[in-house]
Each structure stands twice: as structure tokens, then as C-alpha cells.
């Protein structure tokens, strides 16, 4: 397994413009290695775009983005996306069984996941082996989200990008997913960048936090920064003013 010597991500003056509209505006900041950083901010702040920049589903218009100390352009996009995995908010499933979905990353590399590997990965996300042959489209929202996380883990991702993975789940399912992510972070030392709308969640699951607004990084620091920030914009966001 290829390992990044330093899996942290660093943004340096990153700007993204689409059709003359500024989506990300001159962002500079880092995601520390082996830690959980949460991204918070109002809708349209550019949080999902930050994640897509990290695994090169989109590219910045200007500025430098470093993965493990190397400019992102240095990596082959395919290798990069296998090491910097993203779990999408909607947890899209391909047609077929849970096994077909777990096996997808391997199929893309012209190989196949063994049943034992699939069972082990499912166990990691709290699902038993009876799920393997279930039709993926019949799963509940929480189960799809677990399969989606497991599918990304098949690539042995060193960095995990999570896009509001608990927003559609009930309270118990949210707790289970939070524990799962903390477990993945503790057990495998995976660097995690986690977008959430839930400010309580952002405070208690993350080590660090970024607050984004209108495409700008307005505050970055420890996960409890929201409680102590003197930044007027952060206070306004906390009070639901934006």
C-alpha cells in the first residue's frame, strides 16, 4: 500500500472562478495529518467545492494546493482519488448488490474483492455479512451511507473527505456514523475532512475546524473556536444570521 509521507493538505491562495463567479476566494490553510477537521458554514459557502478540489474532481483557477507536501498536479488523478477518497452526501449506489458496490473500486482496477475482504470491510462499518447480497437500492439512508463509506475505504484511502454524510439520518444513526468515523480515525490514523451543518457535531467530533462563508475561509482553529470566536461574521453565523 502506497503511503503518503505526510498526508496533510495545504491550500495556498486558492481561488476558483466559474463563469466569472468566484466560488472559492483566496483560501489559505491546512488540514493536519491524522486529525479530523470539520468544515462549517452556511449553504453556498463553498464547503463541497473545497472537498472536490482536494481530490481533483475540480481544479483551482489560481493558487497552489499541496497533498503530502507535493503539488496536486504532481499526482496522477486516478492515484490521487484512490488515496484521497470522498464520500458523497447522497451516497449514490450503482445498480446491483451491496457486494457489487463494495467491489466497484476493485473492478475499476480490473481486480476483485474477496468475500472475506468484503465481510471484514462491512464489519468495519457496523454491517453484518447478510447485507452482502442485498439489493443496494433497497437499503435505508443510514445503511447506504455506511456502504458508501465502506466502498471508499476499499481503496485504503489515506485521507477521507466526508460531505454531510449524516444530514439525512436519525439521531441514533448519526451517533453510530460518528463513532464509526472516530474509530476509522483512531484505528487507521486516516486524516478526515468532514462537512457538517450540525455545529454541535462539528465541535465534538473534530480536532480542528474551518469556518467558510461566501467562498472565504473566515476562521480556522481548534474545534471549539465557534464558542470563543471574536470574529463578527462567525458570531453572526452562530446566531443564525447567515
Amino acid at each position, binding site marked *: 500500500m502506497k503511503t503518503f509521507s505526510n498526508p496533510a493538505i495545504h491550500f495556498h491562495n486558492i481561488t476558483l472562478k466559474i463563469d466569472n463567479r468566484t466560488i472559492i476566494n483566496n483560501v489559505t490553510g491546512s488540514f493536519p495529518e491524522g486529525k479530523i477537521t470539520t468544515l462549517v458554514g452556511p449553504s453556498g459557502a463553498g464547503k463541497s467545492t473545497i472537498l472536490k478540489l482536494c481530490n481533483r474532481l475540480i481544479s483551482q483557477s489560481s493558487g497552489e494546493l499541496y497533498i503530502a507536501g507535493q503539488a496536486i498536479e504532481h499526482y496522477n*488523478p486516478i492515484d490521487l482519488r484512490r488515496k484521497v477518497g470522498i464520500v458523497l452526501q447522497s451516497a449514490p449506489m450503482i445498480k446491483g448488490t451491496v457486494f457489487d458496490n463494495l467491489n466497484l473500486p476493485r473492478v475499476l482496477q480490473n481486480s476483485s474483492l474477496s468475500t472475506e475482504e468484503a465481510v471484514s470491510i462491512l464489519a468495519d462499518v457496523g454491517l453484518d455479512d447478510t447485507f452482502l447480497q442485498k439489493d443496494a437500492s433497497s437499503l435505508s439512508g443510514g445503511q447506504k451511507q455506511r456502504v458508501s463509506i465502506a466502498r471508499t475505504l476499499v481503496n485504503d484511502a489515506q485521507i477521507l473527505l466526508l460531505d454531510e454524510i449524516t444530514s439525512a439520518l436519525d439521531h441514533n444513526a448519526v451517533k453510530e456514523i460518528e463513532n464509526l468515523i472516530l474509530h476509522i480515525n483512531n484505528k487507521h490514523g486516516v486524516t478526515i475532512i468532514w462537512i457538517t451543518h450540525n455545529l454541535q457535531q462539528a465541535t465534538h467530533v473534530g480536532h480542528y475546524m474551518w469556518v467558510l462563508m461566501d467562498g472565504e475561509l473566515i476562521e480556522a482553529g481548534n474545534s471549539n473556536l465557534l464558542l470563543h470566536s471574536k470574529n463578527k461574521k462567525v458570531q453572526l453565523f452562530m446566531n443564525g444570521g447567515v
Partner: protein
Amino acid sequence: MNYSTLALTLLFVFIPIILSKTLNLGLEKDTIIATIRSIIQLLFVGYILTFVFEAQGLFYTFLMVALMIGAATLNARKKGQNITGITWKICLTLLTVEGITLTVLLGLKIIPATAQYIIPLSGMAIGSAMVLSILFLNRFSAELEAYEEQVELILSLGGTPKQAVHRQLLAAIRASMMPTIESQKTIGIVQLPGMMSGQIIAGADPIQAVLFQLLVLFILLSTAAISSVLLGFLSYPTLFNNQMQMIREKFHTVEK
């Protein structure tokens, strides 16, 4: 048949116009335009063909085929505006279809190398390839729009652009080929094909007419496969940039 008897058949055109007016379908203008255009276009082609047949030169024959390919390309490309270089891609597809068709027909001496055979058979192959191309492009655009998230998912897991659109590409190829295959299953049972009926009306031996019709059917089957597969594999790379990223605007159908 002469022009005065043809004039009587305009009764068949008055029926849909009257029905459209009575039921407020709003199709009267389109019906009249379609009728006038078909009369002008077909008579024009008729006179051109008379000239080409009498001239008996291969130059005019190939000029005629080139015109067909040009017109078909201009017609089909409207449906693929979101694909970069769609004009030459369709043109190349039609040229390939025509090239393979003529190579087999003339190379194996199935038909003589005269305008009388080359032009109608080329017209059927090119026309069918044009319709197939439109069907393919329509379906491919719809598949991409509907499954954009899955395309992004596969890219995000480290798949190549080809792997990312594989399912959508095959679904569009299959969907565009199915009408040709299905219509051939019931041919002769539900309806007699137009070309065969025309030959029989003109006094040809029915078996000869059937043999020619079968020849056309086999050409159309091959045309369906070649045009959708070739156009598909020429089209999908233009949906991504060299960073293996989706070019978003190409995944959304824009009505033009």
C-alpha cells in the same frame, strides 16, 4: 402515375388538416409545410437522379453521396451541440457507414457499380445512420444528465472517464439499436417494407423485391451497430478534460 393522379392523392393530406383544425391540434401549418417541402424536395431529387442516371458518370454519383452525407450531418449535429467537434464526428461516422456498405456491396460484386444502385442504397444507409445518430445522441444526453452523480462517483473512486460513462454509453448504444432490431422481427408480418412495396408496384418480381429488401435490412442492421458504437466512442472523451474531470455544462442538455 402522372401529376394529375398525384394531385388527387392530396386528399390524404386534407384529412389530417381537417382533423387537426376540428380537434385544435395546431398541426395544420406543419402538415402543409411538410407536404410542400416533401413535394419540392422529392421532385428536385427525382430530376437530379434522372440527370445523374443519364450522365452515367461515377463523379456525379459520388457527388450525390457527398451531398447526402453533408445534409445528414447538418441535420444530426443539432442534437449533439454539447459534444465538441460533433460535426466531424457525425460526418466520420456516416463516411464509415457508407465506406463499409459500398466496400461490401461493390467489392463482392453484389450490386453493379452504377448510380441506379449506389445512390438509393447509400441513401438508405446514410439516412438510417443519421436517424440512429440522433437517437443515440438524444439517449446519451439523457443518460448523462440522469446519472451524472454516478459518473462523478466512479471518477471519485479512481475510475477513468471511459469507466465513468461505460454504463451510460452502452445503454445509449443499446437503446438506439433496439428499434432497428425490433422492427426487423415483425417485418413482412405487420407491414410490407416501403422499398419492396415500391418495387412490386413498379412491376418487379416479388422474390427479386424480397431479395433486395433483405439486402437493405442487413445493411440497416450493420448501419445501426456501426453508427451508434462509433459515434459513442468518438463522443465520450470530449465530456472530460485532461485532468479526468467532468466538463459540467456538457452533462446538461441545452435546448438549442
